[in-house]
Structures are given as structure tokens and as C-alpha cells.
């Protein structure tokens, strides 16, 4: 009895002491130089509110970190807040009631009006309630070209995918790898996203990935995209690097003509002190269409039965979406802000292009938003297999894609 009393008393004292400042552990997988600098902006802004940001960075990529996060939440040891890619990665956790709704904060602060494009907030919405704070937008639809490589081969830097394909033989002759794709499965899947969005077009992209429309996969538009996929495999044959940044390094050094990669590749060019337009060229939508996709990161908040923690979580959510934090964070991260009403004046050329398209070009959903983790990884496995097996036909890819979409719908 006395023990119990003692316990209650001490808990009460600690709770009183912590009433002002709450320690909130935030887990994420941002550990590279630029990423860590970006997340420090959030930490600083949150600490300024009188609470304390306890950094829970998990080294490795998202695929290493997500299982750790999920098992902590399902295992009853939730953190204060955690990163996920917005979309379906955390959906089941929400459905199981393990995540808290941010609906009151979101409607109070009018998130539905300030977040642009609205589709990224919709990805946070489950049964009409908002469960996450989107913090950035990473477009995955970019082709990065090395100006050096084309100079060496004695040809002009291509303005779009078709010109790039024509230039490939000249690159090969000059001993340059035309297209470099790392061996990680998701990188191969980026190529598919790019050809579907740019060559089959955004409408087909939406039909295939959002609506999982099998007829669209069999349609003539996708036929063109599959053909381009075959071409990409030819251009990429001979590339045997693993990591995406090793591939980017080849583009930076002029050893490879180009790479299909998300806009985070920009960070690598920046570290190497390369200038957009002079040393490298960035083409959104393979240069064929002004299009960006809206993959990105979001923070989710596990349900914790502690009013102070709840208050601190709401505070953190407000900080993350505040204009100041959005600008500071996204400049360091090299991504685009989730609100249309802030201006990134310091943005470089490539990012400018992205922001302009985001403002008035075509925007499609990132695959993380529309496919389950299962479907996304299956697709990535299918694509890496395709790029590694010259004998695999595009029809097999088509069949595989249909199977994946059918299971997911």
C-alpha cells in the first residue's frame, strides 16, 4: 500500500516538474550530412517552444528504420513522433488505433487551405481525419545529365529523353556509360515511374497507379512506356554500382551520361560544388513534360495516454508546418515546402523549376502515396529483375505489374 502511494506520489511530482517542458522523442532516418542539418532546424524550432526534442535518428535507410519504428509502436514502447513517407506505410497502425488523430489541430489551423498540393494532405487523411503532418515534397521525376560527359563525346546536351536516347551511341563510343542505375531495387522502380509519367502521360499514370486500372496497363500509352523501359535497360547495361549516390557521383565526374533520380540527388551535386546549367542539367519529367510527383516525408504521432504529451505533440505538429520551419528545413533538405504560401528565395535553378511546376504544372502522386508498402516493394523487385535480365521481356513486366496491382486493389 505504502509502496503504491510512494509510486503515485513520485509520479505526480515528476509530472508536475515536467508540466512546462516535455521531452518528445522523435524518430527518423535522416542521418546524412544535409539531412541531419535539416532536421536540426526542426529540433531548434521545437526547443524554442520550451519543450525538448530528443533526437532518435535511426541509421540506415527507411527500410532499416521503419521495421524498428513499427515494432516499437506495436510493442507498446511508442516514441513521441515518428517519420514515415506519407501514404500507406502507417495506415494499418492508424486503423489499429495506435496513432492519434491531428484533426483538431488541422482544422483549427486550416491545414486544408494552406497545404499545396492538397493531395499530400489527403494522403494523411484516413476516414476524414488527419493523422500526419507532411513536411516536404520530393519529386522523383528527374533526369540528371552530366554536361561534361556530353562535351567529351562531342555532342550537345540533350533537351529531352528522345535526344538522350539518340545520343547514347556517341556516349558509348567515348567510353561513357549512357545511363547509370544503381542496383538497389527502388532505383529501378524510379525508372518505371518516370517513363510512365513522362511518356505514357500523367493521366495514364493516375489510372495505373492510383486507380489500379488493368485496362490502362494494357493500353497503347503504356505500350510506349514499356518500350522506353526496354530502351532504358539497353542504355543502362554495364552499370554496376550499388548505391544511388555512387551513381550520382558517376554523373558528377562525367563517367556517366545521365541518371534518373529524385531531387535529393541535387544535394550530391551541391556538395561537389557543381552548378546547375553549367556542370549538370536537370530535366523534370524526362524533359518531355512539366511534371512533378509528390512523394515526401511526414510525421505521425503515436497515441499516448498522457495529456501533456498530447499537448507537446500538437505543439510539434504546429512547429513542423509553420512557415519559418518549412523554409529553414526544406532549404537544407533540398526538398520543396508543403505550403504554397512560402517562398524559397535561396532555391537554385533545379529547385526553382520544381517549384514552378508545383505551382502551375502537372502534379502526380508519388508511389508511396498510392501503393501499399507491399506493392511498392514487389514492383521494385520486378523492375530490378528486369534491368538485370536482358532476356526478360517487357510483356513479363506487364504481367507482373498487373498481378501486383490486382492484389493491391
Amino acid at each position, binding site marked *: 500500500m505504502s509502496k503504491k502511494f510512494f509510486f503515485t506520489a513520485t509520479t505526480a511530482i515528476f509530472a508536475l516538474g515536467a508540466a512546462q517542458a516535455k521531452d518528445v522523442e522523435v524518430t527518423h532516418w535522416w542521418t546524412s550530412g544535409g539531412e541531419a542539418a535539416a532536421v536540426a532546424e526542426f529540433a531548434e524550432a521545437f526547443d524554442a517552444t520550451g519543450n525538448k526534442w530528443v533526437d532518435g535518428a535511426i541509421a540506415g535507410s527507411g*527500410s532499416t528504420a*521503419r*521495421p524498428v519504428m*513499427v515494432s516499437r509502436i*506495436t510493442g507498446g514502447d511508442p516514441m513521441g513522433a515518428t517519420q514515415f513517407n506519407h501514404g500507406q*506505410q502507417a*495506415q*494499418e*497502425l492508424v486503423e*489499429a488505433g495506435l496513432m492519434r488523430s491531428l484533426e483538431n489541430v488541422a482544422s483549427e489551423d486550416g491545414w486544408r487551405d494552406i497545404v499545396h498540393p492538397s493531395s499530400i494532405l489527403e494522403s494523411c487523411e484516413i476516414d476524414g481525419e488527419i493523422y500526419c503532418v507532411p513536411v516536404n515534397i520530393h519529386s522523383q521525376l528527374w533526369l540528371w545529365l552530366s554536361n561534361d560527359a556530353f562535351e567529351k563525346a562531342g555532342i550537345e546536351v540533350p533537351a529531352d529523353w528522345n535526344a538522350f536516347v539518340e545520343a547514347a551511341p556517341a556516349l558509348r563510343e567515348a567510353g561513357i556509360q549512357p545511363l547509370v542505375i544503381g*542496383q538497389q*531495387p527502388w532505383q529501378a522502380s524510379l525508372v518505371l515511374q518516370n517513363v510512365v509519367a513522362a511518356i505514357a502521360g500523367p493521366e495514364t499514370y493516375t489510372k495505373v497507379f492510383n486507380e489500379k486500372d488493368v485496362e490502362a496497363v494494357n493500353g497503347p500509352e503504356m505500350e510506349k512506356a514499356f518500350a522506353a523501359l526496354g530502351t532504358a535497360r539497353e542504355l543502362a547495361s554495364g552499370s*554496376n554500382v*550499388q548505391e544511388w549516390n555512387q551513381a550520382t557521383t558517376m554523373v558528377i565526374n562525367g563517367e556517366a551520361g545521365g541518371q534518373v533520380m529524385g531531387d535529393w540527388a541535387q544535394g550530391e551535386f551541391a556538395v561537389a560544388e557543381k552548378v546547375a546549367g553549367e556542370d549538370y542539367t536537370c530535366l523534370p519529367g524526362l524533359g518531355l513534360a512539366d511534371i512533378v510527383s509528390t512523394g515526401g516525408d511526414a510525421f505521425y504521432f503515436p497515441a499516448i495516454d498522457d495529456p501533456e504529451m498530447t499537448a507537446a505533440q500538437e505543439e510539434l505538429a504546429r512547429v513542423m508546418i509553420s512557415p519559418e520551419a518549412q523554409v529553414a528545413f526544406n532549404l537544407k533538405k533540398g526538398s520543396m515546402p508543403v505550403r504554397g504560401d512560402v517562398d524559397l528565395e535561396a532555391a537554385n535553378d533545379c529547385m526553382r523549376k520544381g517549384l514552378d511546376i508545383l505551382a502551375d504544372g502537372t502534379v502526380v502522386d508519388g508511389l508511396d502515396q498510392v501503393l*501499399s*508498402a*507491399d506493392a511498392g*516493394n*514487389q514492383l521494385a*523487385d*520486378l523492375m*530490378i*529483375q528486369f*534491368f*538485370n*535480365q536482358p532476356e526478360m521481356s517487357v510483356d513479363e513486366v506487364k504481367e*507482373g505489374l498487373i*498481378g501486383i496491382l490486382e*492484389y493491391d486493389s
Partner: protein
Amino acid sequence: MAKANGSGRPSRLFRNLNAKIAAIPMILTAMVVFVGFSLWTVVYSFTKSGLLPRLDFIGLTQYERLWNNAKWLVSIQNLVIFGACMLIFSFVIGFVLACLLDQKIRFEGVFRTILLYPFALSFVVTGVVWQWILNPDFGFQSIVRATGWESFTFDPLNNGKIVMFGVVIAALWQGTGFVMVLLLAGLRGIDDEIWKATRIDGVPAWKTYLFVVVPMLRPVFITALVIVTAGIVKVYDLVVAQTNGGPGISSEVPAKYVYDQMFLNQNLGQGFAASTMMLVTVAIIIIPWAYLEFGGRKRG
């Protein structure tokens, strides 16, 4: 042991009662963990469980999908290659090394330590070490090329067709010493009289080893076989550290497939289906063997 029809004695159930009571916790643990959880896994492999287990039955869909999945088929194929190579080479090399060490050589302790030492390293360390050794730009290939043989190519980890052999090399380096030590211990247990007898009969040493000693070492071989086979079926960390399944999906293994499905793809149902298949495969091998091994003895 004629005990079956001991009429006047108390029931067999109550014999050695204390020992049986003491074993109850272990029996319960074994029943719940091994049998109970295995059954649970099998049941949930028929559901569409995603990140969390859900009793949403979808029949054999997970299995259909499993056997249509290129990654799984490659995994199975790789396990067969890996298993066959491991069994053959670790036993052949292990036995030869044990026989050589058995020749009462000088510094036997030193050799034994050197050969067993890799076994003290974890698979993760082994994988990383061999990843570097087999790296064409820094490792073995570049050393040979530096000696002047410019066209020499040995890059198993970058070539999907032979990548499994790169993994096998690392696994053999790690595991052969262990087989050797087990067999050496067995060899030491062979009575000197046997050697004397075969020498008197003029049987050459290699024939004695092959036709007399090997059959006598049968229990030791079985022990080593069980341990090595268990290691083969669950191989995971070595592959993750050395190749992470690459290039492409050419060095995937079943245990990695199960992990990837359950934790990366958030598809528990599919992971359970795959692990059930692994269980079934092991059972198909173990049950007939156990029947022959133990069932036979009872009759004899």
C-alpha cells in the same frame, strides 16, 4: 530392455515422477513456442494480414502468389545451390583436414586454432570481410591483376550467375573448421586396435579411413550434419552482409524473403506463407529420416 509387459509395476506414467514434473515447464515451453506458434503461423498464412495480423481469410492466395514470385523461386534455387555446395565441400574439406591433423603432426594445436578461428567470427563479420576480398577493384582480382595478369577476372559478387558461389566461399571459410574439429574429435575416439588390425591386414590408410573409420564415425557425422543443415536453412545474415540479395535478386535466400515480406513489405500473410513452406520442406526431410533413424532402432 523387456519392460512392455511388466504387470505388477505401477503405471509407466508415474515412474520417475520427480523428473517428469521437473520437465513440465520445458515441455510446456516447447509445446507453446514450437507447436503453438507454428500452428498460429500456418493459420495466419491463409489470411491477408498486412502490417498487423488479421483474420481475413483469403484461401490459398498467399501461396499462389508465393510460387509465382520470381524472388521466392530464385531464393529456393539459391538455397539448393548453397545447401549442396555447403554439405559436399564442408564435409569433404573438413574430413580431409581432420585426417591430416590426425597424422600426429607437430604444432597440431596451432593449426587447429587457425582452422577453427573463422568460426569464432559472426556471419556478419565474415560477410563484410569477404565482400571486400571479392571486390574486383580492391580485393583478390586487383591483386592478381597487379602481378601482371591483366585479363584475370574473378568478381563473383558482381555477377548474378555465380554470386552464390561467392557466398559459399565465405560460408565454407567460416564453417569448415567447425566440421573439422567435430570429426577430429571423432577420429580421436577410434580405438588404436582398429588401426593395428588394418595395418596387419595390409589395408592402405586411405581405404581404412574411407571404409572403416567413416562408418564408425556415423554418430559424429549425423551431429555435424544436423548442425550444418540447420545453418543452411536459416542462412540470412551472411547474405545480408555480403550481397544484400544482389546483384538484382540473384542471391536472395528464403529466410531473407520471409524477413523482407514481414517487415519491409508489411505483408505478414506472405511472410507466414513463405515460412510455412520452409517448415514443410524441413519436415519433409526430417520426418522420414527420424522415422528410419529412431523407428528402426526400436524394432531392431
